[in-house]
């Protein structure tokens, strides 16, 4: 089947009515009983390194996309919770990877999406180029919407060159305060802190990486294989100034904070945070406008942590 046929087939699966659950890799939300399960097409349509863009079905795994883009010296910065994480799922959940300090969350990677509307028709949002301000930015709406405004069928994504060097360092935070590291480093990929240890992720020219590390007192002996294990219970968003206080609620090592981003990953599930009333109302109006019968991923709000 060519791309158009696959997209039309998916739209046919979604159909013009009835509740559906667009299943990704099942890494965040198991498929509930009730809605009909649909799965987006998978497979990479094209890679254009000279354009820094690629196109794939939303059902493609992030792992497959990583391997394919690496073969052309490129990378799409999407998180990969497990090998089953799909491109569409990563975008729909919208959480950034551990290097989002430098590369941004998934919404930064999404240029264009083909979605299925509530009437079961295919619609295109965004555009195929790395720069585009044509019409409303519904790609931003899709990213982080947990599939509630329409199943994503396929996407065009922004790629970035794989850096020449990527290194992680770790040391005790009473030797290198994470906030001090954030202040002194130039555009690190990540600064992480669990209350006891500081992890630094650096990318770029090998000599720059070494010099940046040395500038904050890190050397070969501090190199590690990668970031720390990230607690998977829940994640809390806090203002940057509140990160230290948030982390201090937990025993040392039980939570990991992304310094400069304001996300704290914790073992315990995070309590849903109610949206401010005006924002909740606006979100509800947009949801009702794009999915009047509420058929897309019904009930996912609880998993997403959107307290009503």
């Amino acid at each position, binding site marked *: 089947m060519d791309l158009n046929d696959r997209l039309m087939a998916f739209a046919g699966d979604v159909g013009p009515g009835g509740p559906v659950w667009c299943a990704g890799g099942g890494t965040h939300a198991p498929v509930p009983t009730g809605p009909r399960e649909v799965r987006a097409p998978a497979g990479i349509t094209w890679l254009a390194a000279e*354009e820094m863009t690629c196109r794939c079905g939303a059902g493609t795994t992030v792992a497959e996309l990583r391997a394919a883009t690496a073969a052309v010296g490129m990378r799409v910065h999407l998180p990969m919770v497990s090998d089953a994480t799909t491109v569409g799922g990563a975008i729909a959940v919208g959480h950034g990877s551990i290097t989002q300090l430098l590369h941004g969350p998934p919404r930064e990677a999404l240029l264009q999406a083909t979605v299925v509307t509530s009437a079961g028709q295919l619609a295109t949002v965004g555009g*195929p180029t790395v720069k585009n301000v044509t019409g409303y930015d*519904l790609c931003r709406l899709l990213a982080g919407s947990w599939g509630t405004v329409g199943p994503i069928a396929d996407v065009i994504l922004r790629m970035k060159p794989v850096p020449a060097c990527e290194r992680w360092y770790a040391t005790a935070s009473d030797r290198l305060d994470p906030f001090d590291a954030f202040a002194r480093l130039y555009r690190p990929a990540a600064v992480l802190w669990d209350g006891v240890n500081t992890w630094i992720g650096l990318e770029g020219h090998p000599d720059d990486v070494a010099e940046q590390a040395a500038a904050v007192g890190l050397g070969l002996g501090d190199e590690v294989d990668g970031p720390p294990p990230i607690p998977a219970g829940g994640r809390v968003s806090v203002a940057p100034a509140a990160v230290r206080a948030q982390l201090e609620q937990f025993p040392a090592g039980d939570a990991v904070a992304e310094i400069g*981003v304001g996300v704290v990953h914790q073992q315990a599930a995070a309590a849903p945070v109610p*949206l401010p009333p005006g924002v909740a109302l606006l979100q509800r109006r947009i949801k009702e406008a794009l999915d009047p019968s509420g058929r897309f991923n019904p009930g996912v709000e609880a998993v997403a942590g959107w307290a009503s």
Partner: protein
Amino acid sequence: MDQLVAELRSALSADRVRVESLELALYAKDASTLHGGAAIVCFPLDTAEVQACVRLAVAHGHPFMPRGSGTGLAGGAVPLCAPVVIATTKMDRVLEVSPEHRYAWVQPGVLNLDLSRAVARHGLHFAPDPSSQQSCSIGGNVANNSGGPHCLAYGVTSSHVLAVEVVLPDATVVELGAIGGDPGGFDLRGAFVGGEGTLGVATRIAVRLTQNPPAVRTLLLDFERLADGAVTVSAIIAAGLVPAAIEMMDANTIKAVEPFVGAGLPLDAAAVLLVEVDGLPHAVDAAVATVQEIGERCGARTVQVARDDTERAAWWKARKSAFGAVARLQPDYYLHDTVVPRARLVEVLEQVCEIAARHEVMVLNVFHAGDGNLHPLLAYDARVPGAVERVHAAGEEIVRASVAAGGVLSGEHGIGLEKRDLMPLQFSEVDLELQDRFRRAWDPLGVANPGKVLPRGASCAEVMSLGRVPEGVWI
């Protein structure tokens, strides 16, 4: 109308609510070639006053239109349907700067370059840098999702807005996004950016501030053939390098700008590329070497590296003065804005030149080559009979050719009024219906900057219970 004026003056102040014909005429235009007509122009100072403007406008049957500095080129700030214009120029305060956490809260009337100047002492700047940055406002940048030369590496405005306080069309106030983390729910902040004033009025904006790079080097490459310059651009990107900026100027542009700026641009070149690389020193040195090698391989006649900040500044002045320098050639110009895949740059540039020649219009090409964002500038004299018509005809063909080459209608200027009716070139009926539903969710009554962006709902008669189209309104 008198009652509305009286109530607005009571909510704001008498001198900040204007209805005199001269002032209304000044605010009937933006930097595009289009014009409209405002009913009233208001200059609020804060969120509460913006709320009052919106509430009173709608209560009295008028739409409203936010306006920043009026530097937009697509007619986004051309008032249609006799709106109450809410000019944010007096909302010009930088409210809070957090150098430690690298963000600032600003009012929408703060000028783009003024913001960067205000935070420069902290080693920070606001990354989006449109050519109009000396006069465009942050609120306008948010409305248009502005770019600029350095967005190739750093991203457009949407990547640099953490949160935005918005007065919605029903006059309620919401804060979208947050300065930290991933706030739950839809990314309404991201969806608001680029809304061109049709979703509400931004009254406070939390912007991300970017660290100044430790090293910056700027190169000037000149070519005997425009095509060689375009090939060089693609080769640089294909080599895995993402410069901070890659700008191209063609022969006509060089001839207009160089006598004005005296930057040392070669007057006999078919094209020049301005390539800037920044970041950490070793990466910058390696990037300079790569660009030099690629340039020479792809036919650059000379490859210069700016000797000092003075030379670098002169080259950038040449680039950013290009539009103004056109006045040396013709009294009027129409600047277009499309994006094409880099691989199609050569082909589309050739089409642009052919289209311009066929319509007997002078064209200057000065644009963001790194991301394929073309800015064909059609220079003309509006006093010459038929010139305006030929320019419009050529412009529409250029836009069509760009989209046909796999590109998009706009890279920076937005759709506004200028390209509203061309939206079907890029989007299907289903696509546009989805966008319309999205917009109506924000603005069910259609009172926020009506007649812009989407081709449907463009009639003033669809706005509120307007009884007649005001005289002098041009749609």
